[in-house]
């Protein structure tokens, strides 16, 4: 520890603290622009200059380490003069367009100018101004407002290595931007908005909507993945306009899904009334009638003929409510694993993102972590930036494949086999790994890396890895597709998998379904089965925000609340509980899942207790020692295709998130460079994909890292029923030009 005095105030700080950190501890304000607590210090803006006794020059507080006994002054005429000078310099060519700048009110340049600047400027020359640039659907860049603190560039370099964002040219003509891309939508784009201290990078979703100071802030969480990142929503007149990640929980950064995803709350097409089916329409007949209708219908079925299908992002309270409802009526069947992988076991012995960022060796297996747990992928990239060795064995992970130190790319159908062979210590040539590659992986395993296993892996593989990790003392994170797994598992809300449940519906042994917030046509890879099952279901209640393919089969539609419209708790991948507060009043009949169930239960004469007194998440770890199931590929053709919902469509209530969808406007087919060459395809070409019968139009993206003969095709588009032609995520296909 070092003791130093700043403006006469003594503080004690870590030996490696900077003067700026010490000043913050002492409660002394030192203005800064380029400093950021989660970026490496850069010392560029020179806003933080202070005087240190014994040093002839002023020194930047953000990069100068304290020394025991150091005497720092921030209140001298020299410091004042330097601050005024730096502010004057920053403002020389600044457009001063605060009246219509979205950053106004939260702009560090504004704040610092008010506090430390001079009221007048000596500048009489012409300002150099630049045109506005739109970089894709999310961000707007105003070069004229940029103070060249390079925070954005440092973020992309330190965390998003490989993203096309940098500083170009020199001197006062330096400018920030992309080299070759017209857009940047790279999963974590939103952080550029938040990290920019001025109005140079702003959000297109928020552009010219409301003034910052008119917003009230409500603490909530993002429900798009199992990280449940803390998010504050800026609210005005009962509407959310902005999201901000103010608390370092679970980590300092978030992804675009959270930042731009609250839009569904305000969406004009959102349904806020309970509806009943009349002929082929859902109509508003009044709440009473709807409840009566549902209870009467339910009375017709035996408990074993009723089942629940659950969404991602389930809260503890909702899960408990569903459990109690099922117990009230003896209902046994519920399933949350709609992605068709048999998710058990899942879990982790890692406690925080920080632990990942500190790891020296990380083995990332299967996929697609960056799509389903974005911030974990970002943290892995952070670790790479800190010198970690990251090895990825997968068939597809858009973000990580371009960024890891070592990539072993294989066919989708080989993923499980390859991982299984690695952990059981037996090379198998059919996994697509050469003996040499296998040996390199095996050698890497000897370094005791942290293991991160993605959602595509099946049960036997998961069990084997957990077993191995525990025996050998490795850290592991076993991820699954649904962020509901902790709560759903704890409350026993699962049966034998979505396919067997849908088979039962199809066969008529399950007659009544509660589908809660999931569009089965989008989420269940076996679309044929979904169509058959829903076609033969007797009775269905759909809860959600929007009308969609699944809701089309519903007898009743019950509108749900979302995000800060209800108070709820969530359990993240590290087993930690986070809370989202209720801050928005409800407008019409929207209710949470549990509140609807309570109404129904009480109507049927049974009280439903909604209070959760105690919650202890359960983990499932080792389960037997099975062999992975063989993957039988349907269809025919020369290519093996993996069908996945792309990042910018892979979230709850896709229908209501227009901004995010703009980044994924049409279905893309990723093709390896080899196949692109032999088929004469290049980026932007259109092809049709033949999946044994119907064919689908796709736009080509040549993806250098893919294996020859493998295609990765987008799903999850409205009016684009690829899933319905499939019975699994992977299939044999043909390409037609």
């Amino acid at each position, binding site marked *: 520890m070092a003791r130093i005095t700043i403006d006469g105030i003594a503080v004690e700080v870590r030996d490696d603290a900077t003067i700026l950190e010490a000043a913050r501890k002492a409660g002394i304000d030192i203005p800064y622009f380029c400093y950021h607590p989660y970026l490496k210090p850069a010392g560029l803006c*020179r806003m933080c200059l202070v005087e240190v006794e014994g040093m002839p020059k*002023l020194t930047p507080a953000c990069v100068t380490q304290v020394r025991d006994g150091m005497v720092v002054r921030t209140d001298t005429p020299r410091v004042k003069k330097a601050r005024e*000078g730096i502010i004057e310099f920053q403002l020389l060519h600044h457009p001063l367009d605060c009246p219509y700048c979205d950053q106004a009110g939260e702009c560090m340049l504004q704040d610092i100018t008010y506090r430390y600047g001079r009221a007048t400027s000596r500048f009489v020359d012409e300002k150099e101004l630049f045109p506005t640039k739109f970089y894709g659907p999310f961000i707007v860049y105003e070069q004229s407002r940029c103070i060249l603190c390079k925070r954005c560039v440092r973020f992309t370099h330190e965390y998003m290595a490989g993203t096309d964002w940098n500083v170009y040219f020199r*001197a006062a003509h330096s400018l920030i931007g992309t080299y070759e891309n017209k857009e940047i939508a790279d999963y974590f784009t939103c952080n550029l908005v938040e990290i920019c201290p001025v109005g140079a990078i702003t959000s297109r979703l928020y552009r010219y909507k409301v003034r910052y100071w008119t917003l009230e802030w409500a603490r909530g969480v993002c429900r798009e993945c199992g990280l449940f990142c803390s998010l504050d929503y800026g609210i005005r007149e009962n509407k959310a306009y902005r999201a901000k990640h103010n608390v370092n929980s679970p980590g300092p950064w978030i992804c675009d899904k959270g930042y731009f995803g609250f839009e569904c709350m305000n969406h004009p097409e959102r349904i806020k009334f309970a509806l009943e089916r009349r002929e082929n329409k859902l109509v508003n007949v009044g709440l009473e009638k709807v409840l009566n209708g549902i209870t009467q219908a339910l009375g017709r079925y035996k408990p074993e003929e009723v089942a629940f299908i659950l969404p991602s992002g389930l809260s503890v309270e909702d899960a408990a409510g569903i459990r109690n409802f099922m117990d009230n009526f003896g209902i046994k069947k519920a399933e949350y694993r709609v992605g068709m992988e048999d998710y058990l076991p899942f879990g982790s012995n890692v406690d925080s993102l920080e632990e990942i960022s500190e790891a020296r060796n990380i083995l990332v297996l299967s996929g697609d972590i960056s799509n389903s747990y974005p911030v974990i992928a970002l943290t892995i990239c952070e670790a790479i930036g800190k010198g970690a060795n990251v090895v990825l064995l997968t068939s597809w992970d858009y973000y990580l494949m371009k960024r890891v130190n070592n990539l072993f790319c294989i066919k989708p159908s080989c993923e499980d086999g390859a991982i299984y062979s690695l952990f059981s210590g037996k090379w198998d040539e059919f996994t697509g790994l050469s003996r040499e590659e296998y040996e390199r992986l095996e050698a890497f395993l000897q370094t005791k890396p942290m293991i991160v296993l993605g959602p595509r892996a099946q049960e036997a593989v998961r069990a084997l890895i957990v077993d191995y990790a525990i025996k050998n003392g490795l850290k592991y994170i076993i991820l699954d597709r649904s962020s509901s797994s902790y709560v759903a598992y704890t409350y026993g809300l699962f049966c034998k998998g979505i396919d067997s449940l849908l088979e039962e519906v199809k066969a008529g042994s399950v007659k009544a379904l509660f589908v809660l917030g999931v569009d089965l046509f989008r989420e269940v890879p076996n679309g044929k089965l979904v169509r058959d099952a829903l076609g033969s279901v007797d009775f269905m209640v759909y809860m959600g925000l929007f009308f969609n393919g699944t809701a089309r089969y519903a007898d009743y539609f019950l509108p749900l609340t979302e995000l800060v419209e209800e108070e709820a708790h969530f359990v993240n991948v590290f087993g930690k509980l986070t809370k989202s507060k209720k801050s928005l009043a409800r407008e019409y009949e929207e209710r949470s899942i549990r509140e609807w169930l309570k109404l129904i239960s009480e109507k049927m004469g049974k009280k439903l207790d909604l209070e959760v007194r105690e919650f202890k998440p359960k983990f499932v770890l080792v389960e037997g020692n099975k062999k992975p199931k063989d993957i039988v590929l349907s269809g025919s053709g020369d290519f093996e295709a993996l069908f996945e919902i792309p990042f910018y469509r892979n979230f709850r209530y896709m229908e209501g998130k227009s901004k995010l969808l703009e980044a994924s406007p049409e279905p893309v087919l990723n093709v390896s460079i080899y196949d692109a060459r032999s088929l004469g395809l290049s980026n932007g070409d259109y092809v049709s994909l033949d999946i044994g019968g119907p064919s689908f139009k796709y736009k080509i993206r040549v993806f250098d890292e893919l294996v020859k003969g493998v295609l990765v095709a987008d799903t999850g588009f409205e009016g684009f029923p690829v899933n319905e032609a499939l019975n699994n995520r992977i299939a044999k296909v043909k390409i037609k030009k």
Partner: protein
Amino acid sequence: MGEYRLLLANVDKPGSHKLEVYRKAGGYERLRKALFEMKPDEVVEEVKKSGLRGRGGAGFPTGVKWGFVPKTDLPKYLICNADEGEPGTFKDRVIIEKDPHLLLEGIAISAYAIGAHEAFIYIRGEYEYGARILESAIREAEEAGILGDNALGSGYRIKIVVHRGAGAYVCGEETALINSLEGRRGHPRLRPPFPASKGVYQCPTIVNNVETLASVPFIVEKGGDWYASLGTEKSKGTKLFSISGHIKRPGVYELILGTPFDVLLNELAGGVRDGRKLKAVIPGGSSTPMLTAEEVEGMTLDYENIQARGSQLGSGAVIVMDDSTNIVKVVWRLAKFYAHESCGQCTPCREGTRWMVQILDRIVRGEGRMEDLDVLLDFESIMAGNCLCPLGDAALGPLISGITKFRSEFEAQIKSGRCLV
């Protein structure tokens, strides 16, 4: 007192860039001496004793800098700074083009002294001919077994690589140079850490100017004490001066430090041209404050004497201006240079150099205001010492000295709206 040719001893010989010519004059014997008769530390000791100071501009004692290299197992690197970007400077070029083997020998000895097996010559992009000369000299020396895996059969490996810059002045600054060498943007790095502890690839690195390194063989040959016997109290040895401007015989002259400026100006360079009068002198490259004719009276060419007059010896680039010179335009032109060459990382330098030019542009156009001069002078309090690298301070050199020393010329131009010289 006149020229003293140590570094320039060979340059006028025909074929001076060839190995055989160099060897005939005793070339590479100093390397042999170092490798076979001296321990690395002994070489460092001799250089410390010699009092040799960096010839790149800052004048830091070379032996002391070498002493900062930590004793670690990490690889160490030597970089020869041949970026020679400072306006007015063209002295390294003579060594590079005319006596490349002297430089290579100096690099090899210095690399041995600091424990480096790899050395880079970072040469400015415009010196294409120089780069070719160096490359063929390296090839010659490697083929002759002088450099390479087994230098002169000593078992010591010395690999020298030429790396060409892409035309940025700031890449002469040692940390920007290192970034550029690593393939990054040529932006100066924060210090600490200093290159001596974390330089290229985060390994200990010494950066020295061409002339500095070319002086090392003589120190090894004749001893540090001998070298220190040349020059003054604080300025030892010989120095190349590249003199240019309004003189009869511009060129590169080698002088013992402490030689009167008069010798350089009048005896060697032939005095101010066309019988005109001397007006001002920039003594050490464009970044050093200019001196008036009165101020250079009785000046001797050494670090301390020039410093006492408020300027610096710098790189030894003397720019002479006669009474036909419009100082406003000189200051304006140099400001444009810095505004163009600033890397743009830090606020004071980036914005200061741009605004400087905007104001001077206006003054030159005849739209200046008297307040402008005070604004310009005030730049010192905002920029001086507050920038990330010395380029920001360098930009102040001609500006502040020009305005303070020739203020009446600026005022006249502002009042009349035109140039009166």
